[in-house]
């Protein structure tokens, strides 16, 4: 509940606090963005473990699986899809807050490049930056999807 309330509030506006704490470095961007990613991942992981079908656990118990085997072969495949969709959701938020912050406070990165390009009214560069952002998200999504395939095997 508290997490959900925090989730719906515009946390990104708290960025001056992080700037003062960490200085105008990428550490501030990482710190604030990790909060953004943290919340959906926590909520999805929680609901993943809540939704494990008890029948699956009973099957495992009746096959005399050890705790390790139980985790590797029953729990992990059962919770992986929801947890990974949490990762994907988290990625979206992290990407947004990273680029948004880079844009607003001018700390390096694609966001600052976009800001510069728009400031010089280089429309071509702005669109290139947009495409770059999309490619970035596709790349991260690909890595997450590959990891999911590995885990679920």
């Amino acid at each position, binding site marked *: 509940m508290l997490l959900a309330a925090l989730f*719906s*509030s*515009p946390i990104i506006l708290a960025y001056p606090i992080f700037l003062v704490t960490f200085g105008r470095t990428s550490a501030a961007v990482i710190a604030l963005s990790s909060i953004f990613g943290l919340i959906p991942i926590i909520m999805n992981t929680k609901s993943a473990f809540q939704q494990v079908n008890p029948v699956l656990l009973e099957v495992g118990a009746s096959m005399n699986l050890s705790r390790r085997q139980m985790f590797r072969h029953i729990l992990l495949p059962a919770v992986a899809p929801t947890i990974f969709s949490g990762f994907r959701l988290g990625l979206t938020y992290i990407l947004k807050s990273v680029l948004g912050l880079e*844009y607003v406070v001018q700390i390096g990165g694609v966001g600052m490049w976009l800001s510069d390009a*728009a400031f010089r009214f280089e429309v071509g560069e702005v669109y290139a930056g947009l495409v770059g*952002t999309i490619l970035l998200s*596709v790349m991260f999504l690909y890595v997450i999807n590959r990891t999911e395939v590995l885990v679920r095997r």
Partner: protein
Amino acid sequence: MNGVQQTGASLAASVQTPAGVQTLTVVGAVIVWELIGRTGLLFPELFPSVVGILQSFWIYVTTPLLIPHLKASLYEVGGGLFLGALCGIPLGVIFGSQRSLMRVMEPIILYLAVVPKIIIFPIFILFLGIGTGSKLAVGAIAAFFPIVLLTIAGMREVKPVYLDVARTLRASRLQLATKVYLPAITGYVFTGVRIGLGASVTGALLAETKVAKAGLGFMIVEYYSQFRMADMYSLLLFIFILAAVANWAMKLVFSLLLPLPRSTQDAGVFF
């Protein structure tokens, strides 16, 4: 003795409810904050005492200091949400009602939704100036994406079987729209508008922190640049409470309008 034990037990029981744990968490965080602020253990300037924050919060509530900024921000957020819904809902219905169009448009919208809308802000400044118009535009773009995506999701909920049944019953196009599509998408559209509100607040206020003449986001950066930390924290608190109240009010109104709640994904797909 027995009475004391009983009250102790009932106290423990009331603490162990979710609300009790939540209250304890908040109270604990406030106490730790106050201790850090009082002792100056860690970044003395960064953690002003809770009393100072509450004092400046009280000033915001009781004096007309913030009224012009509040007006500007409400205009931007409200206008942005209205424009976003005005474009998002019809487009979502159009995209969702034609399968081929949806297959073309949905990935494009999905990928564009990931891009932070704030980066189009400079272009809006050029078109609309540094007044409230450009922030309204950012808020509208930010609100548009969750609304259109959830409307499409709602349209997808209409299974072909429903349409077949309606056609077998010789439903007219109007009846098809009001009896099949409308009930299916209402819940999704409401959720989309609620998420769109959050997106609009984030977009418009973040744009205000960049270039603005008035607004709540503008005031945050003013306080930050003057290093008035207590004022900044209390303003953040003010904004968070405002956003939470708006979100809660919307939930309440929608649950009154829609007596049969459908299970829609609440966490929100794209802010």
